[in-house]
């Protein structure tokens, strides 16, 4: 069984928001609802400056606080590592939104249930990459099987010394090169 993960290289990311809109189209979200949030770091003093955009979405944690706090077991982890929300079980209590250290969850505009990035599982099941990966104009995102030692994502993690954004906090399956 695969264990899916994603990597994002902020050295390549230009903060163009293509991933946000591609994700919204794929998941049919209204303009104000986004599964990806963007954080900005400006450092230094003119003219010695640096700047980084850090897109953050569900980190698909193995030790997922959203899953452990969910009173109805609506939030769950699939065998392939993708963290999901069962909309039929979700009562919209928002405990998971509070528990998620990455602020990665949104309230669905029509149902009031909780939504978030699910690594475009319907595309992944067809052998495609998630929409944010496919559309990325800077090749900043890599998606793949973390259990396969030969996968491209594992190669990039090793070569670029990719790290989790919050260390071992939640045993996430999302890696950043920064």
């Amino acid at each position, binding site marked *: 069984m695969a264990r899916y993960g994603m990597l994002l290289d902020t*050295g*390549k990311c*230009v*903060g*163009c*928001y*293509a991933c*946000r*809109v*591609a994700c*919204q*189209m*794929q998941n*049919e*979200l*209204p*303009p*104000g609802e*986004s599964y990806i949030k*963007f954080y900005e770091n*400006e450092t*230094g*003093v*003119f*003219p010695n*400056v*640096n*700047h*980084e*955009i850090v897109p953050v979405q569900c980190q698909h944690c193995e030790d997922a606080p959203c899953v452990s706090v969910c009173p109805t077991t609506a939030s769950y982890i699939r065998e392939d590592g993708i963290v999901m929300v069962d*909309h*039929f079980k979700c009562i919209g209590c928002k405990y998971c939104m509070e528990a998620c250290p990455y602020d990665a969850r949104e309230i669905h*505009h*029509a*149902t009031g249930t909780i939504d978030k990035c699910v690594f475009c599982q319907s595309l992944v099941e067809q052998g495609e990459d998630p*929409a944010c990966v*496919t*559309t*990325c*104009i*800077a*090749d*900043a995102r890599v998606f793949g099987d973390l259990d396969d030692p030969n996968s491209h994502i594992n190669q990039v993690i090793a070569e670029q010394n990719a790290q989790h954004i919050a260390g071992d906090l939640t045993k996430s399956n999302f890696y950043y090169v920064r």
Partner: protein
Amino acid sequence: MTKLTRRGFLKASTATAAVATLGTLSYQDWQKQAYASEGEADAEVQISSSTCNACSNKCGLEVFTKNGKLWKIKGSNIHPNSLGTLCARGHGFATNAYNDARLTSPLKKNEDGTFSEISWEQAYQEIGEKVKKIIAEDGPQALAITQDPRPSGKFYSKRFMNAFGSQNVYTHHAACNLSKLTAYAHTIKKEPKCDFNNADAVMFIGRSFGDGIKPSAMKNLANNVKRGLHIIMVDPRFNATAHMAKDWLAIRPGTDLALILAMSNVLVTEELYDKDFIENYTTGFDEFAEAVKDYTPEWAAEITTLPASKIKEVAEFMAEKAPKAFIEPSWRAAFGCSYYNSTETARATILFNALLGCYGKKGGMYYGDGVKFGKLEGPKFKKLPEPVAPQYGSDRFPLTPTGSGSSVVVAEGIEKGDIKGLFYYQSNPVIGYTNAEDFGKRLDMADLVVVIDVQMSETAMHAHYVLPDTTYIERMEVPSSTGTVADVRLQGIPKVHENTRPVDQIFTELAEACGIGEYFTFTVQDVIDAQIAPFPDEVKEKLLKEGIAKVPVENPKKPDGDPHFPNDDNKIHFADDVWLEGGLGRNIQWIEPKYMPNPDNIDEFRLIAGKQSIHSHTMTTNIPHLIQITKDYDLDRVWINTKRAEALGIKEGDKIEISSEVSTTPAIAHVTERLHPDCIWTASHYGTKSPYLTEGAGLGISSMDHTPFHMEPFSGSNMSQENLVHVKKMEA
């Protein structure tokens, strides 16, 4: 009893909504319905091909529809500009078909300035009568058209005007890259391609692939930086691509010419130029060497605010990496149309690249043949009449390529009474090309202004007639090409509004009404068939089915050592009398910008502007999915350097007032270390003035509000960054 599941409830509620909704659904309303059908076995997903229209790159698209409505789009893997990816603008712009602000009927302006819906027949008849009257009184040279180059728009606009005998066909380039185009036209004729994959050092001047996007170029650059490509970013602003650069040269805006002259000086005085290349492929080098001898790094340091040592270091580094090094040709950026010295700056970059000897070399710049389309011949395509007069403005700007022309000088022509009737196709000069108020006033003096668009733009507000186009994704268009790939925009979704008409139909019918119908006895399909006629059958078939196909090209040149300049003698002319005709010198020289803020005035700045990745010109600010990003991340704020802001008591998010000789506008400040202290910066998309475009209302400023109506005397470009503004904090 039927169990009411959540999905069942959703379906029931959207069915009620559908009944309650009159007319066509907005994208969001439609989306609510579409969500309800997600996962249902009967949601029929269809995939077709098209090309994007969110910018001029025309990326190939796969269009996914669900039950006949747009669901999503994906970048084509085979189109050279998308390479499987797509930017935010592309995704968002596709939804424009369902935008609430779509024009759905021809409109006529009333005496009181309001607009009334009229029939197509009435619109054509009245426009036709007015055009005939203008021609009878002032000749066809009193007519002009401006279009933002897109496949069908470009073809039909030009043929429409030429059929009258007028050559007054203009592009938006006066507000984009006209200075650069002018410089290339008289040095090496046209712009070469860049071999990023083999280059070792590239200097960008003002251009940022992460802000003004061509997806494949960004992807290529990001991967080449990982490979070790050294980027030098020259920009007053630490732009969205600057973090990939090894050097950020935070130059004082308007002084890029001084930097390049000084870099040239370093290469000449230290004899670091490519002597073989100079010998074999250039003329006038000795004059050039003499001309740059006083432009030392120390001289340029004063002007640019860059350290002399850095200028010298960068020049030497480029020379060391030559010929696998070049100054990227840029687009709008710093010398497309920005300053009084932009044409001379573009000319300087072309000559500096000659010193590096990079033309025709691996890792440098090179030429290659593109797709050659078939001619429009035969009984369907009547031969166009001889023009009655040269393009308006071409006597004043003799160096400017007439394929673009200065669309700004046209406005002056209205005031002088030379131009009486104007057509605008998918272009918005009132807010985008020069000072909005000034351009608008001039348009109001014309006898006839016709705007063809999908939304009520600021220019449409000044029109006598507004004709509603379909959006790009609802129609088929004439072919275009990128390198050796041809594309035909195919219809991706059914027409949304019954009374809109595609651009080809509008021009064909307009031509008939204006008495030139004999030149338009063909369909868009006829144009496609004629243009792709020379291609092999399998290519034709692929094009008509998939919209994109690689075309066999005779000479797809690669860097082989010979530059293959497209000019007559295969040489770059360092000095040339041709420039005298346009008011420049035979030799390159330093030219001051028109304005320079006085450093002693703590409230005085230059206002500069640039692209933002999520918007295209001023045409995307009414697209909900794109403008929401602006709102979520305050992207409409006006940037000001931290120290300058402190001196004026301005903090992040403060309300400020920006005033200039032409206007006063409020704005919100973004205080940052990422900007040169001499300027303030805004994205160039905001400051919407059309009351019909409500999504972006009240957001940001238009830089053109503070830029006077003026033209660079050498090319006719709009000098978009020649201004002086004063900034103060507004009381809360």
